[in-house]
């Protein structure tokens, strides 16, 4: 096994530096060479490392750790009671190193990040072709790849935080990429503010980890000093562990758009569509799922926190799915769908099945990236139109997009044997297995979550096919692509067909090959990507290469003593759960077919319940009324009253006092010498009188 992670980090960083410094001067080809070259090589190195790990699995959790330099070496030895000390017997000198951990989890994440990232880089070459900020876009994208690779491969919590914050920055930069748009800037600020809440929570969690474990490394370092996961539960009490885990989860909720911090993700769709695909669907938003999987050892010692993770995940999954059902903007449908699927992943992790969470993360990266890229191809073909009411019938004009989009929609709906089926059903059967095995109140909660999962599966299938039929089904409802100065050929066509001046459906063309090839590759991955998952359904127990691969990360000999064990789903449970979810998925598809068979029609609906969901439960409005308006009012009042009267008044008052005093005193300076002489005389007389009187 070779740790090539440093190259996966360094290459996109190099690309970012080159593009950031010299991008403006480079030609289009030069920019693409740098951007695609660095991201492609990063993927190559990630793949090589991954393959070498398949050939020689790591012998211990930290065997793939590679420390590059020690940043902090305090030399202070803190003794941790009740913890077997490492080589430095009696305690561990506190050090913080920049190290990269290469284990099955980070290897898998690196493959997804660089693989999907590379495909989206290729796609962006076509999508962003006409944009004046071409070089800036690729500089940011490369920067994101670097930050995300750092996040998933850091070997301690501190550099995890660095990567965590840097991906937030990349997200901010890319959401606000079209900074001329006021809405894009507002969305970027919203995303940043909400992400900072999560970063802050992660910081506090790290402080607590430092306080109670006196190290920030995940695993023992080469000196044998125990890492956080090696010394559990350490001298941390159960309550402390729960607090640490909940703080970690709050960070995850902000990054992965879970309740109650999900609001930024739908707004983040203001960014260019490849950004939505890469950052806000496939990779960055899954950082939370990664963090919980990474810290699974901590969470296993705090089952209460894990249960809260599952409950929040379930609530988010259902909540977001209901909103997605009524959205009209195709990217917003996909955004809420992403939130909902992330909820699934957290549910899976909450049911102690971290492997299932990561598995769903993987397949979701494929099909959600594909959905976004497909939506991007539609938007590109329509010249920027995102409203479903202006689409329809595009299956004739955008054939490749249609078929790949359909595969992705089937995959997310959990139709066998596409990838989403395997991963989603693994989560659902894990939930059911927990429910049946645990019993009692916790069991009831897991039954409820399982029901929510099934319901959400049905809803997912419904809104996905509402989207598919809305874009591609029925007949064309729009007025042709918005003109953005393509070439004369299109203009002629417009003259022939464009009764309303915009060219109609015949002015719509499929995207160039540079955009459709990534679609096709992702479609293949969406179709067969789930095959690394479970075949245990048909009795081939544990034919699950991904789970086997990840197993070393998600097991710990300490857990033998734990009250909560991880329950593997039995064959019966799997069949019940799978049957129900596929049935509901098909029902959802049929429902969408029944309603939108002839294309999407938007009808005004005055039903208050409909209006409630259509307006996304008025969450944004409530936030504005409860939080933003009072703050703005306070600010305005303060600027009017406090600033005008108190602050300005104070400083002006001081100036007035000195001005007036000086004005009075200046009269003493007559400039006549005799006045001064008289003053001196008076002074002398006074002094003499004083001494005379005093005697």
């Amino acid at each position, binding site marked *: 096994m070779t740790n090539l992670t440093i190259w996966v980090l360094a290459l996109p960083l190099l690309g970012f530096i080159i593009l950031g410094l010299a991008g403006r001067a480079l030609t289009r080809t030069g920019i693409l060479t740098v951007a695609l070259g660095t991201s492609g090589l990063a993927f190559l190195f990630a793949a090589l490392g991954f393959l070498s790990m398949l050939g020689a699995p790591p012998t211990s959790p930290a065997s793939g750790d590679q420390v590059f330099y020690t940043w902090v070496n305090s030399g202070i030895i803190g003794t941790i009671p009740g913890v077997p000390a490492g080589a430095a017997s009696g305690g561990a000198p506190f050090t913080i190193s920049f190290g990269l951990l290469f284990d099955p989890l980070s290897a898998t994440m690196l493959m997804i990040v660089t693989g999907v990232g590379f495909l989206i880089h290729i796609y962006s070459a076509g999508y962003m072709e006409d944009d004046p900020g071409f070089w800036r876009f690729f500089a940011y994208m490369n920067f994101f790849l670097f930050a995300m690779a750092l996040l998933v491969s850091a070997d301690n919590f501190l550099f995890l935080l660095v990567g965590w914050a840097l991906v937030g920055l990349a997200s901010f930069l890319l959401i606000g990429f079209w900074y001329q748009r006021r809405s894009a800037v507002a969305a970027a600020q919203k995303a940043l503010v909400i992400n900072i809440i999560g970063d802050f929570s992660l910081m506090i969690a790290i402080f607590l980890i430092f306080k109670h474990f006196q190290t920030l490394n995940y695993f023992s370092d080469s000196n044998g000093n125990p890492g956080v996961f090696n010394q559990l539960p350490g001298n941390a009490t159960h309550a402390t562990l729960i607090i640490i885990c909940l703080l970690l989860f709050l960070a995850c909720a902000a990054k992965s758009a879970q309740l109650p911090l999900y609001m930024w993700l739908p707004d983040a769709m203001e960014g260019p569509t490849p950004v939505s695909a890469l950052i806000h669907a496939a990779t960055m938003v899954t950082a939370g799922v990664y963090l919980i999987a990474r810290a699974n050892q901590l969470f296993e010692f705090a089952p209460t926190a894990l249960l809260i993770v599952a409950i929040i995940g379930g609530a988010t999954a259902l909540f977001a799915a209901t909103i997605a059902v009524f959205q009209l903007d195709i990217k917003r449908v996909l955004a809420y769908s992403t939130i909902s699927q992330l909820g699934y992943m957290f549910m899976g992790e909450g049911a102690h099945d971290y492997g299932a969470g990561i598995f769903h993360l993987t397949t979701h990266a494929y099909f959600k990236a594909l959905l976004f890229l497909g939506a991007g191809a539609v938007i590109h073909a329509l010249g920027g139109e995102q409203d479903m009411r202006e689409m329809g019938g595009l299956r004739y004009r955008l054939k490749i997009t249609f078929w790949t989009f359909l595969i992705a929609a089937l995959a997310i709906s959990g139709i066998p044997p596409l990838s989403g089926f395997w991963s989603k059903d693994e989560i659902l059967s894990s939930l059911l297995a927990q429910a049946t095995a645990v019993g009692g109140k916790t069991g009831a909660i897991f039954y409820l979550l399982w029901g929510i999962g099934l319901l959400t599966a049905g809803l997912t299938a419904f809104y996905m096919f509402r989207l598919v039929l809305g874009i591609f089904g029925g007949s064309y409802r729009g007025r042709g692509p918005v003109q953005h100065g393509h070439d004369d050929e299109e203009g002629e066509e417009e003259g022939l067909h464009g009764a309303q001046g915009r060219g109609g459906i015949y002015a719509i063309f499929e995207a160039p090959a540079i955009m459709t090839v990534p679609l096709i590759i992702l479609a293949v991955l969406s179709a067969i990507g789930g095959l690394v998952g479970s075949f245990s359904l048909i009795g081939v127990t544990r034919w699950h290469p991904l789970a086997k691969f990840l197993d070393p990360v998600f097991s710990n000999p300490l857990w033998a003593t734990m009250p909560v064990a991880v329950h593997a789903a039995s064959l019966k449970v799997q069949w019940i759960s799978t049957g129900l979810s596929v049935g509901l998925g098909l029902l959802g598809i049929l429902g969408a077919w029944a309603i939108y068979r002839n294309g999407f029609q938007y009808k005004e609906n005055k039903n208050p319940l409909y209006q409630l969901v259509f307006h996304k439960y008025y969450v944004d409005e409530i936030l504005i009324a409860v939080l933003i308006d009072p703050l703005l009012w306070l600010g305005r009042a303060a600027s009017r009253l406090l600033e005008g009267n108190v602050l300005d008044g104070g400083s002006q008052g001081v100036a007035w006092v000195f001005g007036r005093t000086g004005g009075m*005193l200046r009269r003493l*300076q007559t400039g*006549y*010498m005799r006045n001064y002489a*008289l003053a001196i*005389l008076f002074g002398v007389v006074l002094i003499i009188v004083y001494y005379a009187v005093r005697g």
Partner: protein
Amino acid sequence: MPIPISWYLIVSAFIFTIGVTGVLIRRNPLIIFMSIELMLNAVNLSFIAFSHYLDSVDGQMFVFLVLTVAAAEVVVGLAIIVSIFRTRRDIDVDDMNVLRG
């Protein structure tokens, strides 16, 4: 019969008062300078008187010091007055009020 010291002091105070009055009311800087000299010499007179009365040479030492300083002061002062006269063609002290606040 020796002259009592109070006589000397009365003469000294009288001359000093003439000097002060001259400084305060005259407008010609040369006269003002003379008045200053009167004040200094009035003080010198009392120094000498006390020196004799107390039978100590300290007072006479001071007189030499005061005379030296007075000479230096007159040199600087006259130079300033000449320089002012060159620029303004006029040395009335009541017109010299450019430092008024």
